[in-house]
């Protein structure tokens, strides 16, 4: 070992000169959580295998025309949002909805664009204790977990939870639970909030489940992909949205998890200094915070290259530096759109749009070790909305590369993006 090596090793070892801080890692709790996840995965898979529900199939049912359908008619219970927040300590900059397709959990996060910020409201089926074993006062709280009443919401008691780890009482900070009028267990989580703030947020929240809109519909996902959850994030300034669909491929607990994420935005996001990006922010590291710059120092660039568009495109190579006004009339009727073949590069026609989108597939080469992802861009010429779709598999680069995603539909009217 060289002196250089020894120096670095000594530096790193110095972190552990003293005793390690207490840990929250608890084998028993991990085991409970692991069992639950395993159970849920198996249940989900058995259900989805019977129906061979692919992502596209599920989401086609969420096209604008179908979105008005009541929950439960379109796979719909899985696409519910847990109502809306009322009062919040500070105005949110974005909100995120999550729906598990087995209806085991629906949640919403409203907050800032920073990791872990913002309150999260989750509704859990009232008849189960599967999702959060320690927040199940009716289904049996484990002996070491003690619910404590801290107030009421709509006349129903509110609990926070603590448990004993060794000789210490550990409080699950920032989390309260109550039964809603609609019959769910509501869990409000905000690690930044104190108890009184949590209670006030809970008291002013509307916990009536409502459908949420998924304006972007990718297809061409690998056959056999069992859909697990759908997420949608949208800044309140309407500067774009992100969506995510995750699912599992293949049987057994060792199945590949596949995550499809996407972004749609107008011509450019706003940099921190207030100016607009010349090109849409294409960040496969996924961060609004980065503005026009992609993390790790990758500079802003035109994702379409200097020669611009795919064959047949009418998109100019030089893109406008200011976004044109968006179309706000003629809402699309895209329910007739059908998924395209995964191998097809034919642009999909968003119903209601007078101009076909230009679709360009790009495989991002490995950059700084980041696994390369299949990337499909769509430029909806008429309204200058840019869409990027990213397919990510944690363990299988080849899977990510072969899982081509096409866009079969896109809500071209911004009103379609607005949540109720």
């Amino acid at each position, binding site marked *: 070992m060289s002196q250089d090596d020894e120096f670095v090793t000594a*530096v*790193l070892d110095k972190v552990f000169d*003293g005793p390690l801080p207490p840990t929250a*890692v608890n084998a028993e709790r991990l085991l409970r959580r692991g069992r639950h996840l395993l159970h849920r995965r198996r249940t989900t898979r058995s259900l989805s295998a019977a129906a061979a529900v692919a992502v596209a199939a599920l989401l086609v049912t969420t096209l604008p025309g179908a979105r008005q359908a009541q929950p439960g008619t379109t796979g719909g219970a899985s696409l519910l949002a847990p109502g809306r927040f009322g009062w919040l300590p500070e105005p949110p900059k974005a909100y995120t909805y999550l729906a598990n397709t087995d209806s085991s959990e629906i949640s919403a996060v409203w907050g800032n664009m920073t990791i872990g910020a913002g309150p999260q409201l989750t509704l859990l089926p009232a008849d189960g204790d599967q999702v959060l074993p320690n927040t199940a006062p009716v289904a049996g709280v484990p002996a070491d977990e003690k619910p404590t009443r801290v107030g009421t919401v709509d006349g129903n008691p509110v609990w926070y939870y603590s448990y004993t780890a060794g000789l210490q009482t550990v409080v699950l900070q920032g989390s309260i639970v109550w039964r809603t009028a609609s019959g769910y267990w509501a869990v409000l989580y905000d690690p930044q909030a104190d108890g009184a703030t949590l209670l006030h947020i809970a008291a002013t929240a509307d916990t009536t489940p409502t459908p949420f809109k998924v304006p972007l519909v990718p297809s061409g996902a690998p056959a056999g992909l069992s859909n697990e959850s759908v997420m949608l994030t949208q800044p309140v300034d309407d500067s774009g949205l992100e969506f*995510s669909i995750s699912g599992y491929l293949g049987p057994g607990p060792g199945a590949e998890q596949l995550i499809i994420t996407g972004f749609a935005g107008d011509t450019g996001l706003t940099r921190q200094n207030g100016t607009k990006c010349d090109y849409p922010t294409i960040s496969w590291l996924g961060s609004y915070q980065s503005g026009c710059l992609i*993390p790790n120092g990758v500079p802003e660039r035109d994702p379409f290259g200097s020669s611009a568009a795919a064959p047949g495109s009418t998109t100019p190579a030089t893109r406008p530096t200011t976004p044109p006004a968006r179309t706000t009339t003629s809402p699309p009727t895209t329910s007739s759109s059908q998924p395209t073949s995964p191998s097809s590069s034919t642009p999909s026609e968003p119903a209601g749009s007078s101009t076909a989108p230009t679709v360009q597939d790009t495989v991002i080469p490995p950059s700084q070790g980041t*696994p390369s992802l299949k990337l499909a861009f769509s430029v909806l010429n008429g309204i200058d909305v840019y869409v990027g779709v990213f397919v990510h598999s944690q363990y299988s680069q080849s899977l990510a590369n072969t899982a081509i995603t096409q866009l079969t539909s896109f809500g071209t009217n911004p009103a379609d993006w607005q949540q109720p």
Partner: protein
Amino acid sequence: MANRQRDADFTEYVQNRTAWLRRVAVLLCRDWDRADDLVQSAFLKLYLNWDKARRADNFDAYVRAILVNLFLSEQRTPWWRTITLRREQLDEITADPAAPDVDHAGSLDVLAALGAVPARQRAAVVLRFYCDLSIEETAALLACSPGTVKSQTSRGLAALRQALETSHSPQTGTGGLRHVPGR
């Protein structure tokens, strides 16, 4: 019966290897709370992939690979997904305000200096010099070429050294680490 054996083996493994995995995690993410999150996520993934892990040539290496991949994945993960992961593991995510204070001044210096090293370079440095992996092993784990590992490590070391020197300059010095002469 098989499940019971798996659970017992898993529990024993978690109890025996938590400290080791936390050390690796904190060097990667520089924060003990986040390190606990990472470790718990890694253990959960291990549990879900127990059969696959058992077939691995090196069980610890398999778990470490999960941890590193989780860490790197977090770097490129939209903030909302991070929230969701945290939310899903709410019952494991705890804070203990009553925990006794421990003097980690020296630790904090090093952890702060590691913050000057980009995540991927940091991972390369930690794997090479703390986990004592070879260039080839590191390359396999990071899914890149040995040449990339060399360059990432070199840049990471330079950034770490510069950060340490800055933090211990006469103006800001708090004592502690010294540069080994002759480099």
